[in-house]
Structures are given as structure tokens and as C-alpha cells.
């Protein structure tokens, strides 16, 4: 049947409204079972042995002493493994308890061959640096070298030129639930059951089946609940494959989740960046040229790319800044590899670009909001800059930074963001049973974003039911396939698939009950838990009476996503107010406004939570987080949660989430927004600090020390 468009937003019962998360109760009562909570009877606990050196080879591995320990049931070794970072997995044990596994891991003897190493990008770029990959690959790889227009001519003709170097740190995902899973083989040894903490049940299944050389159909992966991923949890990983192998060898279930230290070092990060940017503008404030030389590290083999000059026209995009030159290097170091992290590349790009825009605004004497409205080609964002500025109290912003009595200065800053999103590749099944129950199955997974709630809300909307009437079943490879939850594509993939399927199931129901209401299916609609005639609403059947007519033949329909119901490309703006104590360098967030377009909003309540969460992660990135590597030993010194700082309750300002619900945006179809609101937060904070103290803190995180150093450079240090 032809795909029916979404109803107008004004006619919706649940969609666009606030719906309480359908799985909130199990989460607040401790009854929700995460991968880390699944412990089949007689399960063993797995634990890795890791490399103690940042560049080394496990020449020989002796597990005899470990295996001799009572309670040790299986071991795994990767003899000959070359480790390009400290903490690489080279062996593993599975034992009756975690304590015994720990004892056994300590008894694994490894003979190491050690190589020179380098863990900092600035060091790795030097010609005399140790080589991360020996003689096989250089440390530095030119990833981008591109030019559009005539950059030098534009600089010569410019009314203002700014020049700055901005840097961003390595940020680790720090998911609270570590990577890992529980694996159990059946008695035949041919079928594998997996409970994984993952953003992609099907990608985990595929990787496991491939690594274990078995049919995908023999692997079942379940993720009922998972404790955060932020882009780092798509594959089975070494931990998954080793877990399955240990379980097969021991003929017992094995639970293997990374330790906190391993989670911090081995499961991905946002790469660093150092961006030397020159930019030029004409007297009206129109940016005419952008010239960047940049580098960054994504670990020993991952890249460190980001889009530039960000929202003001990236390479290959004819709109935006006309003259652009970008040279960028990936630098390899002996440290953990980058993985996708909430809006990969964008926060780094935003931090350098938005600082550059602000410096141009100061140089030209133009309000930063107006400079952005002038240069940003996106019309939605043009309106959002003004809206966010008004909400944060921009009129109180001093154009004379650092002025005013007392050591505590107030500053305001702003930044914008873009994201693609879109969705597809999702199927769903809707079952309507004769007792009136409705079960919706979809093999997506809920990262905490509210996907399970989205499934129930859309089905309830289309079937004229209440949200609690729907049983949403997700997070299992036995359900119809859906993609991994990444790129902010989940909502835009899942919601349309549920809508199409629910529409089809309803059409079948209407056809089967039409005779009972003396009419055709086309003259029936589902409203308020009833099926009624459109031409005579008084002629109706309750939902349960209608379903009772199905008798022994319940309805089960499976359909798929349709691109007409979703969209991609979204706009957002963040504006902040903060104070800086010029005596201590302490930055206190006061208020953050996050304005975000989201297309057709499915659940406003959980969407706002996404905005709030993104703001908080952005504050954490801007002010607190930093992976610190020890140059001498080559280890991460803060692979834990007391010295790898994430923002806490005392750091919180007032946060105002604003969902951009214009008629035009709502009519665009569903757009996922998990990622974009995190992008401009650090940039807006950097700009607000500049506005407060009149000095630019050009490196993240903006620590008190960096604030004081910036003041000193400007000759404004206190005392």
C-alpha cells in the first residue's frame, strides 16, 4: 500500500508531545538488566592481560601457572601480538570468580620485546621522533591538502585579518557501562547466545559470526539496556570475540567486560586537534578567506579529521567562504585509537572556527551574533542565533571585555552547529492480537536516547491507542533488522518504519472488522482506543471488541522505513553566560541555552533530555576532560574516573533546552539530533571566556591555569 504522510503536527495525540520514557520504571528500580547485569548460572568471569609497554611485542606467553590455579577454566593468548599502545590485550583468562580471574591474570608470564615509543603528537611530528610503527609507516600522514579560490589575494584585499592557533584535547567516551558481553554456547556448540553492551546488535552479530566462522543465523545478540556508548560501541571488538572463544573452550557461559582502566584506554576517543587559522573579512564583516594548517592525533592508526571551515562552507561546498586553503595531518602516537564520538570532528572544527569568527567580530567592531547571521548560509540558524542570544540575555553582554569592578567577570558566547542525520534500513513487525494487545518488534537498540519510547509513541499515534497499550520489543537480532545507532540516524530510521508498519497493520484490521460496522475499510478510522466510521462517528467498536473479531488469526505485518517520512540536515545554536574569576582562573557556567531543530519531534520530553545531556557533555569537554599521557612511561596517567574529570553536579548551570518547533521544521519529517547539540558548546564557552576577560584561552580544556596564563599574556594578571 502507498505510504501515507505524517498527519499535520496539530492533529497529533502523542507525537510532538511530552511522553514519559516507557522504560523509566525498570531503570529507577534497578530492575533493568544491562549486559553487565546478565549472569547466567555457572557463568565464568573473563579478564584480559594487557601490555605494560607502549610499543612492544608479546614474543612468548606462558599461561601454565595461571591454568594451574583452581577455578581457572579457559585461557586465550595472542602470542606474537605487536602492541602499539600500553594496555593492548594479549591474553585472557576465564575463572569461577573475578578474584580468581585477577589472580590468574597476574600469573600469566609474557616475554616482551620493547621498541622506542612516542605518546604526544607534538613529539611524534619531530624528525628525530621514535616511530610508532617502526619503519613500516611514518608518524605523520598528510590527510588533507586542498584549496579553493585565491586565498592570498583575498588576504591582501581584506579589511581585517585574524591569526590564531586553537587546540582541542583527546576526550575519552567514558561510558559508564564498559564494553563487553556475556556469551553462552548451546550444548551442540553450534549456537551462540550473546548479551552485549552495544549500539548495534546486528553489527555485533556480524563481527562475531565472521570471526568465529559460523552462520550469522546461529548467533543471537540481545541488548535490552546499555549504559552509554556515544559512538564507541558498534562492533563485537576483541573483547567480544575473546569472550565467545573462552566460552566455547570452557563449555560454560563467560562474562567479559572491560575494567575501568581498559575502558578508558582501549575503547576509543575523540582525537585531538591543533589548528593554526588565518582568516580575512571585508569591511561589512563578510568572511572572504580561511587558511588553516592543522594536525591532530587519533592514536596509533586512526585518523583525526574534522570539517573546515565548518558551518561557513566546507571544502567542495560552493556556498560560504569563497577562498579556502586547508592542510591537515594525522599524527600517529603510541596511544589508544579514536572511534566515532558524538558528532565526530564537529566540536573540534567548531572550537577553532567559532573562535576565529569571534576574533573577526572584535577586529571589525561587529556584534558576534550579527557577524554570524551575515556569514552563515543556513536560514534556520540565522533565526536561531537571535533567539538563543535573546534567551541567554545577550543584551547584558559587555562589548568591552574585562571591564567592570571586582575580579569576577561575566561573559557571553555563541556558536552554531550542523549535522546530517537522516535514516533508513529499518524494518519492523506490528502484531495485533485478538485480546487487543499490540506488540511492536524492531531490531534497533536504545542507548538511553529513548528509542524504545519512540517505538511505542509512533505505534500508539497511528493505531489511536495510548502509549501504555503498546509493547515495544527492541534490542534483539531475532527482530526485524535495523542499523547501528550512530550518526543520529536511529530516530529517523525507526519512527518511519514503525509508522509504515502500524499503518499497514491497521489497514488489515479495518478490512477485517469493516463488515461488523456495515461499511468499507476506507470509511473507518482508529481514534481513542476505538474503531469508528468516518461518516458516522457514533458507529464504533472499542479497540478490544474490534480485535476480538480477529479470533484465532492475529495480525502480523512487517514493513520498512520510507524516506518520505524522514529528513536530514539540521541546525542548532548554543549560547552561554558564564563568570570568570580573574584571581583564581575559575570558570563558572551560569546559563546555557541550546536551540535545536529536530524536524518532526516524536517525544519532546526525551528530546529535551538529549539537549541537556549534550550541553553537559559539552561543558565537560570545554572545562574538565583531558586524556593525559606520561611521556616517560607511555601510559595514560588518568585512566580512571577521579583524575579523568567529567563534570559533576557542582559544575551545573541553569540549562534551557529549546526545541525548534516551527511549522516549517515540523513538516520536514523525523531528524535525529543525538549529536548536533554537543557541537557548539565548547566553542560558545571559549568565546564567553574571551568576552569576560578580554583574553583568548585558545586550548581545551579551559582550566584555571590556562585562564591565568591567558590573562598574563594580555598583561592583565592580578596581583
Amino acid at each position, binding site marked *: 500500500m502507498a505510504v501515507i504522510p505524517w498527519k499535520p503536527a496539530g492533529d497529533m495525540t502523542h507525537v510532538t508531545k511530552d511522553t514519559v520514557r516507557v522504560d523509566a*520504571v525498570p531503570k*529507577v528500580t534497578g530492575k533493568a538488566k544491562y549486559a553487565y547485569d546478565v*549472569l547466567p548460572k555457572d557463568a565464568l568471569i573473563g579478564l584480559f592481560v594487557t601490555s605494560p609497554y607502549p610499543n612492544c611485542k608479546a614474543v612468548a606467553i606462558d599461561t601454565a601457572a595461571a591454568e594451574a590455579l583452581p577455578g581457572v577454566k579457559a585461557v586465550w593468548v595472542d602470542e606474537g601480538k605487536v602492541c602499539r599502545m600500553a594496555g593492548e590485550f594479549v591474553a585472557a583468562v576465564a575463572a569461577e570468580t573475578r578474584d580468581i580471574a585477577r589472580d590468574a591474570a597476574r600469573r600469566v608470564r609474557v616475554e616482551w620485546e620493547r621498541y622506542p615509543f612516542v605518546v604526544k603528537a607534538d613529539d611524534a611530528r619531530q624528525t628525530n621522533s621514535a616511530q610508532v610503527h617502526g619503519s613500516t609507516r611514518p608518524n605523520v600522514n598528510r590527510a588533507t591538502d586542498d584549496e579553493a579560490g585565491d586565498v592570498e589575494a583575498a588576504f591582501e584585499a581584506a579589511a581585517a585579518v585574524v591569526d590564531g592557533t586553537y587546540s582541542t584535547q583527546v576526550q575519552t567516551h567514558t561510558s559508564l557501562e564498559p564494553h563487553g558481553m556475556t556469551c553462552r554456547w548451546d550444548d551442540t556448540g553450534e549456537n551462540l547466545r550473546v548479551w552485549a553492551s552495544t549500539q548495534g546488535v546486528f553489527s555485533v552479530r556480524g563481527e562475531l559470526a565472521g570471526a568465529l566462522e559460523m552462520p550469522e543465523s546461529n548467533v543471537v545478540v540481545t541488548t535490552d539496556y546499555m549504559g552509554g556508548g556515544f559512538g564507541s560501541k558498534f562492533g563485537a571488538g576483541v573483547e567480544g570475540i575473546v569472550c565467545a572463544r573462552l566460552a566455547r573452550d570452557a563449555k560454560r557461559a563467560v562474562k567479559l567486560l572491560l575494567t575501568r582502566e581498559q575502558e578508558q584506554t582501549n575503547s576509543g576517543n575523540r582525537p585531538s586537534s591543533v589548528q593554526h587559522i588565518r582568516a580575512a573579512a571585508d569591511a561589512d564583516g563578510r568572511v572572504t578567506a580561511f587558511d588553516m594548517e592543522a594536525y591532530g592525533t587519533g592514536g596509533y592508526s586512526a585518523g583525526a579529521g574534522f570539517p573546515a571551515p565548518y558551518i561557513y562552507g566546507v571544502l567542495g561546498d560552493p556556498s560560504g567562504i569563497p577562498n579556502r586553503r586547508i592542510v591537515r595531518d594525522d599524527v600517529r602516537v603510541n596511544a589508544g585509537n579514536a572511534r566515532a564520538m558524538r558528532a565526530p570532528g564537529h566540536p573540534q572544527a567548531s572550537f577553532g572556527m567559532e573562535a576565529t569568527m569571534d576574533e573577526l567580530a572584535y577586529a571589525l567592531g561587529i556584534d558576534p551574533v550579527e557577524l554570524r547571521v551575515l556569514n552563515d548560509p543556513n536560514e534556520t540558524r540565522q533565526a536561531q542565533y537571535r533567539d538563543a542570544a535573546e534567551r541567554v540575555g545577550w543584551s547584558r553582554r559587555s562589548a568591552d571585555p574585562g571591564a567592570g569592578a571586582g575580579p569576577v567577570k561575566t561573559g557571553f558566547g555563541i556558536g552554531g552547529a550542523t549535522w546530517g542525520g537522516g535514516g533508513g534500513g529499518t524494518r519492523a513487525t506490528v502484531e495485533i492480537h485478538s485480546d487487543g494487545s499490540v506488540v511492536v518488534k524492531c531490531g534497533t537498540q536504545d542507548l538511553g536516547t529513548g528509542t524504545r519510547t519512540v517505538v511505542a509513541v509512533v505505534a500508539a499515534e497511528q493505531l489511536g491507542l495510548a502509549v501504555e497499550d503498546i509493547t515495544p520489543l527492541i534490542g534483539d537480532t531475532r527482530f526485524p533488522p535495523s542499523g547501528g545507532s550512530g550518526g543520529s540516524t536511529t530516530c529517523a530510521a525507526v519512527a518511519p518504519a514503525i509508522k509504515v508498519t502500524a499503518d499497514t497493520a491497521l489497514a488489515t484490521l479495518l478490512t477485517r472488522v469493516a463488515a461488523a460496522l456495515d461499511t468499507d475499510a476506507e470509511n473507518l478510522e482508529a481514534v481513542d482506543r476505538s474503531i469508528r466510521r468516518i461518516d458516522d462517528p457514533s458507529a464504533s467498536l472499542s479497540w478490544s471488541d474490534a480485535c476480538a473479531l480477529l479470533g484465532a488469526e492475529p495480525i502480523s505485518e512487517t514493513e520498512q522505513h520510507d524516506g518520505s517520512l524522514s529528513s536530514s540536515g539540521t541546525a542548532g545554536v548554543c549560547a552561554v553566560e558564564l563568570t570568570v574569576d580573574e584571581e583564581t582562573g575559575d570558570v563558572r557556567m551560569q546559563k546555557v541555552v541550546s536551540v535545536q531543530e529536530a524536524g518532526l519531534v516524536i517525544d519532546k520530553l526525551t528530546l529535551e533530555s538529549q539537549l541537556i545531556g549534550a550541553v553537559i557533555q559539552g561543558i565537560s569537554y570545554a572545562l574538565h576532560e583531558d586524556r593525559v599521557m606520561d611521556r616517560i612511561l607511555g601510559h595514560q596517567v588518568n585512566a580512571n*574516573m577521579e583524575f579523568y574529570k567529567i563534570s559533576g553536579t557542582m559544575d551545573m548551570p541553569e540549562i534551557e533546552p529549546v526545541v525548534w518547533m516551527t511549522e516549517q521544521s515540523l513538516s520536514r519529517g523525523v531528524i535525529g539530533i543525538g549529536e548536533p547539540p554537543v557541537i557548539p558548546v565548547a566553542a560558545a564557552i571559549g568565546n564567553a571566556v574571551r568576552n569576560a576577560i578580554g583574553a583568548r584561552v585558545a586550548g581545551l580544556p579551559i582550566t584555571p591555569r590556562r585562564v591565568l596564563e591567558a590573562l598574563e599574556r594580555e598583561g592583565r594578571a592580578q596581583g
Partner: protein
Amino acid sequence: MPKHEPTSDIKREGPEDEERAAGSEDGPPSGMSRRSFIQGVGGTAVATAAMSSSTHAEADAAEGAEGVRVASITLNINGEAHAVSRVEPRTTLLDVLRNRLEYTGAKPVCERASCGACSVLFDGKPVYACSILAMDAEGHEIITVEGLLDGDNLHPVQEAFVEEDALMCGFCTPGFVVSVAALVAENDDPTLDEVKKALSGNLCRCGTYTRVFAAAQTAARRVREGA
């Protein structure tokens, strides 16, 4: 939840029992005795050191695994007595709750007393279960997030978390719920600053803090008005 028979008679299985029993008498009122602190922060440090120093590793492993001095203990959890056999001196309360008794609400995250995801009430005070030895928990009243339920009815704090959407992935949520429950039991009209301070020992990565604050104040109001 499996039912565990209450056991009043504690069967000792190891020679160290007297020492342990003495230790639990002057147990940790704040939930953090010197011994539990050492256990909490020492585990990882020992493991790391042992990796590069094999003699140390040998000695440590021998004492831990082959000395196997275990005891049976009884823990009072959520108002029920639970007998737990073969508990090692190094076994944490969190380990027993999650892996021996199936109370998986408290979560292991940092495993060294910095994140609060394993918070439980210990004689009414919120403590980190990862840093309390199981043996030290004997004789104390332990309430986990599961124990806040009144039959099928949500605790006012749980109810407020649901309404305010004070959670996302939910992994830190049990710890926050427990900390807020402890706060509102003591102060049913907390200011925003008091809420922030009371929850400063709990970390959230999804970024739910401001909604948790709202939930705490909503819950406090309910408790206040209900009283």
C-alpha cells in the same frame, strides 16, 4: 528475586574470623573504613605494579588465591537476612550484592569510590558498595535501590525521576536514586545548592544532572506534603 533463608548462626570457616568480627564492630559509620579504603583503591595499583614486577605478583597471587580463607556471613539487605557462604576477606559488598545475591541495581563503574553508581544505604547513609568489604557489612542495615520499592509502589524519589525524565541510559540512575532518597529522608526542603552538594559524589555521563535536581526537589516536596 530468589529467597534466601535467614541464618542467625554465623558459621565461621577460617582462622581469621575473630579478627574480622572485631573489625566489623568498629565498622565504618561513614561507610569508609581505612581497610575498605585500601581495598578500594589498592586493587588496581597492585595489579599494575605486579604486571612489571613478577616477584610481587607471585607473592600476591599466592596469598589471595591459594590461602583461600573464606567465611559464611549474613547480610541484612532490604529487610531480609541473606546467608552468603565462602566469602573471601577481599570480597566487596558490591560483589556479593551483584554476583551472589542478584541485586544488580547497584552498578560497578569506577570500582574505586569515585563515581557513586554503586551507592547503597548503609544504616541510612549513602555509601559506595564497591569500597565496603562484604564482611564489614555484617550487622548493618543495607538498602539497595530495589529495596526502596514499597511492594509494587515506587518510592517518591523513583516516581519523581520517572516524571522529570531524570535519566537517560540509566546506568548511574540507581546510585542517584539512592543518594536522593538519603537526602530527602534527612532534608525534605533542600535548596538547589543542597541538592547539588548531596549528589556531588555521583557522576552521570549522559548528562542528566539538571533533571535529577528537579526530581530531587519534586520528591522532597512530595515527602514534605505527605508528612
